[in-house]
């Protein structure tokens, strides 16, 4: 027989104005198994809580129902009070007779009856409640940062400077990301590499940071505080300890005509190469797809010229396993290849380039040493057209969203062009100018007013080549939509920023959700912008949505603080309201039949396979098992299980069944 206590709160007059609290306490006090019932003005006040605690002790209560406000408000309060009185906190439930009753119904008998019903439901539920213990998990105080662009660099440095270990994984041979490709940055026009390179070096030299370049994350297992990660270090065909980075091999490599990815195809590189002069680490890798030795079986010029004998043609990929407590995703973005716009002729006409290519043309370290030269014949373009929204805000052919950074970089491009080609005429076709940001609007105005860039409000319909000119056909919507044609020497398409190639696969590997554009999804768009729905995994930079440099850096520092906050605990405690698969004595072991249809519904990969073996070590049954560290308690598996082998604490089959019975059968 249960000994349950019912405590009905008046909440001042919030409840008692429409609900007869005394009556509720009296009637529910007569329910079977209710040992004690009372009503009180303010249950959550100190005297109210004291009343609760004393009643627990005095009446040896083994269950408590507090009929008051929403459990979302005060459940923790009353559970804590119960615990202080020696009652397991999970034997306390709340009936919501304020938000769901007194506030929404008029003062009449029905309202009081409803309150009684709600209390009765909880009394019956509590009878089926079980004493539970909180789950404690230890925290590994090492962070994994995936991606070595500006966001990853910032996050890694911030975490490392808090005194925690950081492992950074970068896919490319060098860290630096897209920012290292940029010429000058808006709105201050400071040189991108000048501000970025010192940070890259700091990462390489920081005692708390371990850097894995040319590496990718392959497997992520575990949960907050306790992730196990496998990193594939792709073979660089090089002994990094021996290599001094002298670069002799890169000058002697006979393969010289491989399109340079860093230069966006505007320059060439050898098969053994350092992506760019300021690379970190400044050591080459062999691109096996283009290396003569790997293609034809002979060459080895690099091996012959290497003064330290560091080349290793037979080097294999290496798998590194690490344990980390938190993960920061900073994998950045990609630019949408504009070839889906056949009417713009990208790829067909050499002088139609994208924004990132223009950055390389404008960069002092780029293929033209910063001179604006068109790719087809190396001539200086005298008339140049910038096309904004080339892919953005275009549900038909591109992407639906605004890429956010293009307005600013296009204005910057026009300005840089004008600074370098004084007698040139830049045109910008745009739809709206979105320049919200510190000193952004002023910057755009300068481009228009001081540098005389012609801004035309309209979209370009088509671009074609005729007599060595690019005919750009657009319309001026501010003139009522009249068509205009510009004979340009070069066209720059402000292509959209999109999720990185492989973002979807990485999200699945890491188990974070992503939006329909394959950008990683934050836990809450406003209040949890750097958290993901998976505890312990955070977001930094443009892997979440297009972001400019200041925003990426801010998000990275935000993510770093979240990691540091997590690492300030030695262990984590969580509510034990998790699912579990029943266990029974042999030979049944469990009523689970191992169909594992529950596995794919679990958003947290918390359902594992457990093999039951006999004495000879043979597997005789395979059962589902819930990893309580991973389970977040949604209960979707419970609803799906045909044999009712899975159940969930706090919302068990017995509990909800009893609730319905109690609610409908008065």
């Amino acid at each position: 027989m249960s000994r349950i206590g019912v405590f009905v709160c008046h909440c001042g007059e919030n409840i008692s104005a429409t609900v007869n609290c005394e009556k509720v306490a009296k009637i529910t006090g007569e329910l079977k198994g209710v040992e004690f019932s009372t009503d009180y003005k303010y249950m959550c006040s100190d005297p109210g809580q004291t009343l609760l605690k004393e009643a627990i002790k005095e009446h040896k209560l083994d269950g408590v129902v507090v009929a008051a406000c929403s459990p979302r408000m005060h459940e923790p309060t009353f559970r804590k009070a119960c615990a202080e009185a020696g009652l397991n906190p999970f034997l306390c439930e709340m009936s919501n007779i304020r938000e769901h009753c007194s506030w929404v119904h008029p003062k009449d008998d029905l309202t009081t009856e409803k309150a009684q019903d709600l209390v009765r439901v909880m009394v019956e539920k509590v009878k089926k409640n079980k004493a539970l213990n909180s789950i404690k998990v230890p925290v590994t105080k090492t962070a994994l940062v995936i991606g070595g662009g500006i966001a990853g660099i910032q996050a890694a440095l911030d975490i490392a400077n808090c005194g925690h270990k950081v492992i950074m994984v970068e896919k490319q041979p060098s860290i630096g990301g897209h920012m290292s490709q940029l010429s000058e940055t808006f709105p201050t026009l400071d040189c991108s590499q000048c501000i970025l390179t010192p940070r890259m070096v700091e990462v390489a030299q920081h005692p708390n940071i371990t850097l894995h370049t040319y590496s990718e994350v392959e497997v992520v297992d575990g949960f907050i505080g306790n992730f196990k990660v496998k990193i594939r270090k792709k073979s660089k065909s090089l002994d990094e300890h021996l290599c001094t980075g002298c670069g002799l091999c890169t000058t002697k490599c006979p393969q010289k005509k491989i399109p340079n990815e860093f230069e966006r195809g505007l320059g060439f590189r050898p098969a053994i190469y350092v992506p760019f002069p300021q690379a970190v680490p400044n050591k080459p890798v062999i691109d096996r797809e283009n290396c003569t030795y790997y293609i034809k079986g002979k060459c080895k010029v690099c091996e012959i010229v290497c003064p330290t004998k560091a080349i290793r043609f037979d080097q294999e990929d290496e798998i590194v396993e690490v344990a980390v407590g938190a993960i920061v995703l900073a994998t950045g973005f990609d630019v949408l290849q504009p070839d889906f716009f056949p009417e713009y002729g990208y790829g067909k006409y050499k002088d139609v380039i994208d924004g990132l290519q223009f950055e390389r043309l404008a960069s002092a370290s780029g293929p033209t040493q910063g001179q604006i030269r068109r790719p087809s014949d190396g001539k200086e373009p005298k008339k140049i057209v910038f096309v904004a929204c080339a892919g953005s805000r275009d549900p038909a052919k591109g992407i639906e969203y605004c890429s956010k950074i293009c307005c600013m970089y296009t204005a910057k491009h026009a300005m840089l062009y004008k600074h370098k080609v004084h007698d040139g005429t830049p045109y910008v076709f745009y739809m709206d100018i979105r320049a919200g940001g510190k000193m952004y609007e002023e910057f755009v105005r300068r481009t228009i007013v001081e540098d005389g860039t012609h801004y035309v409000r309209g979209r370009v319909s088509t671009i074609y080549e005729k007599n060595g000119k690019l005919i750009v056909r657009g319309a001026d919507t501010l003139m009522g939509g009249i068509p205009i044609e510009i004979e340009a020497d070069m066209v720059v398409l402000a292509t959209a920023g999109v999720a990185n190639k492989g973002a979807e696969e990485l999200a699945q590997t890491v188990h974070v959700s992503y939006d329909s554009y394959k950008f990683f999804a934050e836990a809450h768009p406003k209040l949890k912008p750097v958290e993901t729905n998976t505890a312990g995994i955070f977001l930094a930079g443009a892997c979440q949505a297009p972001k400019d440099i200041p925003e990426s850096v801010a998000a990275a520092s935000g993510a770093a603080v979240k990691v540091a906050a997590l690492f300030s605990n030695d262990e984590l405690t969580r509510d034990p309201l998790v699912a579990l698969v029943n266990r029974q004595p042999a030979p049944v072991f469990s009523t689970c039949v191992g169909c594992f249809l529950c596995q794919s519904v679990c958003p947290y990969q918390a359902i594992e396979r457990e093999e039951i073996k006999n004495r000879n070590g043979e597997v005789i049954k395979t059962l589902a098992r819930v990893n309580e560290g991973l389970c977040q308690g949604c209960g979707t598996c419970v609803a799906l299980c045909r044999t009712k082998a899975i159940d969930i604490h706090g919302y068990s089959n017995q509990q909800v069944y009893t609730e319905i019975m109690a609610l409908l059968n008065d």
Partner: protein
Amino acid sequence: MKVGFYPGCSMKGGAREYQESVSALAKVFDIELVEIPDWNCCGATAAHNLNKELSLSLPARIMALAEREGISDIVVPCAACYNRLSIVKHELEADKSLSTRVASIIDLKYEGTTQILNIIQFIDKYITDRLEEKVVKPFDYKAACYYGCLLVRPHSILKFDRVEDPQSMDVLVKKAGGDAIDWAYKTECCGAGMSVSRTDTVARLSGNIMKDAVDRAAEVVVVACPMCHSNLDMRRPEINKFLNEKIDIPILYISQVLGLAVGLDAKTLGLNRHMTEVNLPVKPVREIPVAKEPKKVVNTQKLEA
């Protein structure tokens, strides 16, 4: 091999040579074109400009007649008719109640089971495989393939070729031994049905097209639409007046180009019916490329199997 055939009105009149050349070409490849009995006009621009129901009903009747005859594929060489038939088929498929209403207007059962093929799809489905082996007189000219509007647009319904810079006709011309040039006006509008009512507009639009073709050294413009043909060919005096130039390159139907390549004579193909004289310069016959040999071997193997 039997294929349903919808010539459309213009091929019975102003574009007779198109029908003549399509029929002759089909004959070379042993394809029997079965004209849909008692077909009517598709309604063209006039119908959809003035009345939506009419613009749906006229093409629906054509397709219903074909269904009644058990015809599964209809080749519609006129790009305008092809466009109308395809769009109507699409709209009726998307809206069943509309389909029922139209069926009651035309008083025929309509299921939408027939496949509508434009001239290029028809050639690709029934001829292309055997084309190269039949080429005896390579069409050795620089050709500007002009697709116009109705063959490729709207892409969401027609789903034919690339909507910008289409290639299918270029490929055929190349297979016929020609040199399909890259140019900018492949899919620009010629002025379409305004030929009579707004001749000035047609002269300007068609003029721009001809100008670009000639500027890029085209010796011939290849089309697949009677309307495009009449604008570029019959309206040549107006075009030349607009451009203040004398452009005299001929406009050929794709069926005529292929016909010439497989050795049909000018008269059979109706070249004499063009308003702009077809006076292609005589060129020395090229040797048939060596690359064709292995292909033949493959074909014989197929036959044996």
